[in-house]
């Protein structure tokens, strides 16, 4: 059942008018060259100010909702992990919740193994540690739709695999997860992949089929060889 309906999403100069539907429980990868529009698509769904079009989740138009209701429907992790203020990790997670729900915060601290870091200010954490805190913040309100921009960058190998596991477990319980990423080796862990280039969705399908398409190699300027991807000359 289609749960996310996005129509006519566009950001001038970045993303051409795009329609997208995502079913409940789908784990979707967004891949494509740098500057192709992966981030723009995520931002447009997250409703940044410049984005036009409509987004509805479970039939509710996002733009008309209160902050609390929106938080239950979607959460966005931007690619930037900057932290300007010395707010503790626990407090950052709490910012993702309308009210301070200690039990939920503790759950997330456990899930992302943040016990040791929970009371340290986030601007003093390493980028990878901060990524985990910001992921916990995004998950805090148990949103129906998660938009994650390069969540694997800066994570150590253990956390890359663990995050894939967490996201899969989450999607199996119903939420939709959209992930922009660069590592093509992870595509087989996703239900569906979108190939985004030149500001539009070029291909949309099962990862294995997508990779096999000639257009995929054209856009990435790569060639699949038995030993892995090589540069196409």
């Amino acid at each position, binding site marked *: 059942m289609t749960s996310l309906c996005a129509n006519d999403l566009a950001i001038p100069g970045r993303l051409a008018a795009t329609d997208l539907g995502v079913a409940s429980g789908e784990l979707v990868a967004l891949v494509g060259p740098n500057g192709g529009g992966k981030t723009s698509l995520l931002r447009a769904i*997250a409703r940044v100010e410049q984005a036009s079009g409509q987004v509805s989740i479970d039939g509710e138009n996002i733009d008309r909702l209160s902050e609390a209701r*929106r938080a239950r429907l979607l959460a966005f992790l*931007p690619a930037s992990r900057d932290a300007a203020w010395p*707010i503790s990790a626990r407090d950052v997670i709490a910012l993702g919740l309308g009210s301070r729900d200690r039990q939920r915060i503790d759950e997330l601290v456990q899930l992302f193994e943040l016990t040791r870091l929970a009371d340290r*200010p986030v601007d003093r954490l390493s980028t990878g540690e901060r990524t985990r805190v910001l992921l916990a913040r995004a998950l805090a309100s148990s949103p129906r739709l998660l938009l994650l921009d390069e969540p694997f960058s800066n994570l150590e190998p253990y956390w890359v695999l663990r995050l894939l596991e967490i996201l899969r477990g989450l999607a199996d319980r119903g939420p939709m997860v959209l992930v922009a990423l660069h590592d093509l080796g992870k595509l087989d862990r996703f239900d569906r992949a979108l190939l985004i280039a030149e500001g539009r969705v070029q291909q949309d399908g099962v990862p294995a089929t997508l990779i096999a398409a000639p257009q995929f190699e054209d856009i990435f300027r790569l060639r699949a060889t038995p030993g892995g991807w090589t540069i196409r000359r």
Partner: protein
Amino acid sequence: MKILIAFVIVILAAAHLLLPLAPLAEARALDPGLAQLLLVELRLPRTLLVLGYGATLGISGAALQALFANPLASPDISGASSGAALGAVLGGYWLGLTQPMALAACGAAGALVAMALLVTFAGRHAGTATLLLAGLAISLAAGAATSLALALAPSPFAFYDAFDWLMGSVVDRSLPQALAALVPAALACLLLVRRARALDLLALGEDVAASLGHRPRRLGLEVILLSAIAVGACVAVAGAIGFVGLVAPVLARRITRGHPGQAMIPAGLIGAILLTLADLFVRAIALDRPLPIGVVTALFGTPIFLHLVVRMRRGVAA
């Protein structure tokens, strides 16, 4: 903590209003009405001004720091105070305005122009160095333009008149003058404080705030407009007072565990305390003529400012 701060404010306000007691007692001995006149006409505007101006500096400083994601942004560093002073001088000495409200509007307009220039030059995502340099350039230019406007003013006494006011002074202001500063400032501060949650979320990035239904660009314009109105109105009446708007939010964020938006209310309370203390200090030291309060805040504020700069540099190095 909140109760403690509120208690301190009440005590300080009472002390500011009533001390020194001797003149009040003397007036009372002559005529109870005279004592009341002294209290309401002379003391009350000054007490209201230090409390209100201090709170305005704290709140708008905290709002600007949250907006620029920079602990050094503040009404003085951003050039808003200098712009407001220029606006008020132009209004008072060149347009011949005398109505306190009209002068407050000129101050707000001047502050707004300065902030608009800052955003144009430095951008809203400027690094600390860019922000400080752009703010410094605007402050210097506005300061020079203010001197020029006074030097060439039709009134030959303009410079002499304006000296105390330029340095920041709350002495001998009337109740209508105090209200001209404080009514617009209070309204603007009230609207700023309502944006606390949005400014806290801005700490997670503009896109996160937007994803939760806030509008960061509009929020930015609102914060700039509201702080310009609040600071501009106060500067027009009591001159540019530095450092309180810088220091109060820094202290306030220790209470709010780093949250920049929530820090606005405590910053307002701390600002009120700091400025009241500064004015009590002004009255405590006996000189032939009162020391401008802006001189006192600058004397005490500079070391704190330097301490902040050093700490930031260490933070970057770590």
